[in-house]
């Protein structure tokens, strides 16, 4: 019954046109997500690499990024909206705050987990700090780093709905407007499209991961796949 209503909703061409239409909402949603994820990556990846590489401040960083996870996105977004007088920037900042911890954790763990023997060998061969970072630590950190990025993207896609609460677009509109009038088919459609977007984004990132993670690491992962599995933090290969 509810499914029928859902299909009815989906079948109504009015829901597919104009600024309120699904395509536009989806684009808006994707826009917020990409902005937030790129913004967070621009902050978290360099920071994670620096801390992982230098070994300085790891404890502080992990503590801080865990504390960041506790920041309620809704509170942040409403607060920033009032502070910034209704611009989109506040919302994006709220979402960036959401996305930083997983990316930071993934990057840091990736560099940290790089086999100490390998890093040692790199040093012993006469690699400078930069060479070690780019030629050894970054490639080896990629699986966990990408895992963190994918986690962040998932969370942001799911949470970007909050933007609708402060009057922005995105698929959250379907959820919130549907909710106001208890139009479950609309809410469900919103949920469906958000999930769809999340899956698509994850697929794209998984593809990217396949491309940029060096093949040797996959071979190595497969070689140990028999017993102890990939480490806990973040998702690695899907």
């Amino acid at each position: 019954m509810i499914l029928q209503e859902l299909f009815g909703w989906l079948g109504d061409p009015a829901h597919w046109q104009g600024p309120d239409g699904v395509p536009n909402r989806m684009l808006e949603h994707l826009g917020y997500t990409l902005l937030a994820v790129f913004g967070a990556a621009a902050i978290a990846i360099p920071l994670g690499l620096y801390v992982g590489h230098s070994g300085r401040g790891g404890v502080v960083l992990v503590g801080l990024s865990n504390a960041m996870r506790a920041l309620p996105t809704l509170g942040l977004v409403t607060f920033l909206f009032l502070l910034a007088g209704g611009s989109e920037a506040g919302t994006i900042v709220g979402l960036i705050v959401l996305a930083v911890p997983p990316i930071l954790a993934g990057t840091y763990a990736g560099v940290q987990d790089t086999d100490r023997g390998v890093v040692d060998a790199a040093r012993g061969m006469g690699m400078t700090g930069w060479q070690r970072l780019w030629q050894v630590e970054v490639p080896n950190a990629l699986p966990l780093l990408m895992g963190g990025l994918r986690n962040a993207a998932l969370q942001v896609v799911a949470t970007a709905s909050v933007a609708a609460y402060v009057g922005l677009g995105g698929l959250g509109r379907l959820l919130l407007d549907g909710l106001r009038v208890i139009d479950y088919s609309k809410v469900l459609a919103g949920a469906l499209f958000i999930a769809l977007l999340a899956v698509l984004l994850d697929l794209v990132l998984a593809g990217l991961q396949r491309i940029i993670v060096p093949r040797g690491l996959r071979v190595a992962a497969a070689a140990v796949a028999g017993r102890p599995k990939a480490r806990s933090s973040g998702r690695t290969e899907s």
Partner: protein
Amino acid sequence: MIEFQAVTKRFDDGTTAVDNLDMVVEAGTITVFVGPSGCGKTTSLRMVNRMIEPTSGTVLVDGEDIRKSNPALLRRRIGYVIQQAGLFPHRTVLDNVATVPLLSGWTRRKARARAAELLEIVGLDAAMGKRYPAQLSGGQQQRVGVARALAADPPVLLMDEPFSAVDPVVREGLQDELLRLQADLDKTIVFVTHDIDEAVRIGEKVAVFRKGGVLAQYAAPAELLSNPADDFVSSFVGKDRGYRGLSFLQADGIQLGGVSTMGLHGEHLSGERPSTVGGPDWTLVLDDDGRPRGWLPPGVVVQGEPAEEELRPGGSLYTEGTALRGALDAALSSPSGLGVVVDDDGRYTGVVTAQQVIDLIEERRKDAA
């Protein structure tokens, strides 16, 4: 040449890892550091390529104080092989080996060509170059590690327990290869192990460290076994050191004896050289190529081919020209008391008795006195 001058390393937590080390590692030799776990072998080694900086004292490489050189550049001139090989999992074997040449600014093509050459030198198939480290066995990984360290043709090679992760048989093969390589390439190699057998096998000189980073003895292996500096060294080199020491005594003057032999098909081959021991005669059975197959006890007479059950398996074989240790063991392990001596191709050339070995040892001992 590597020179440690009054080198001490104390870590921040107060551990003294190396204590006032004075030592000269000769150019073109394999020098081995041995000692119990935690005695400062790795620390000493890593002070040579500035992975660790001494607390006091000076390290010279080829007469030059290493503090004066840029660490990265210094390290490119010093090959370094570590226990777990430390290969880059994200690069192919070929690219692993090509790393240092690339760092030193070679073109990719030239670096790869050099890498391919090195794979051959360490006995790996060229096809392996395309694989990733995870696709190699432990022994193969070790070879790649050695090849990588050799890539820029560094005059000095530091090896920290490079073979400890592989099983004994493979390990012996790797040791042989290292000796062969050294003969060909003439590097200055510092090799760390905590296995005294490995040390005396490959070292031209051996440095024994004791806990606290003190050098207990620094000598040639034969000297170490025959003349340990103190109780610590003598207990560390083990209780079989008299026997092990025979590895360093050449068997030059030994007179081979003969024994009656027969072919696998029952044909009498020879008996011309007189048996060097008395008592009833054993017969050595040889195969068509002249390689020993086993003994027939005295009194056993076979017509035609000796059956497998009638043959007593032989002892270990002694290859002519090698150290006395093998000769003694051949004699002791032979059911006839006659150690079988073979040439490099494994063909029977004569027999030797434990008595002869003992006599030779006694003679040498008297000469030395």
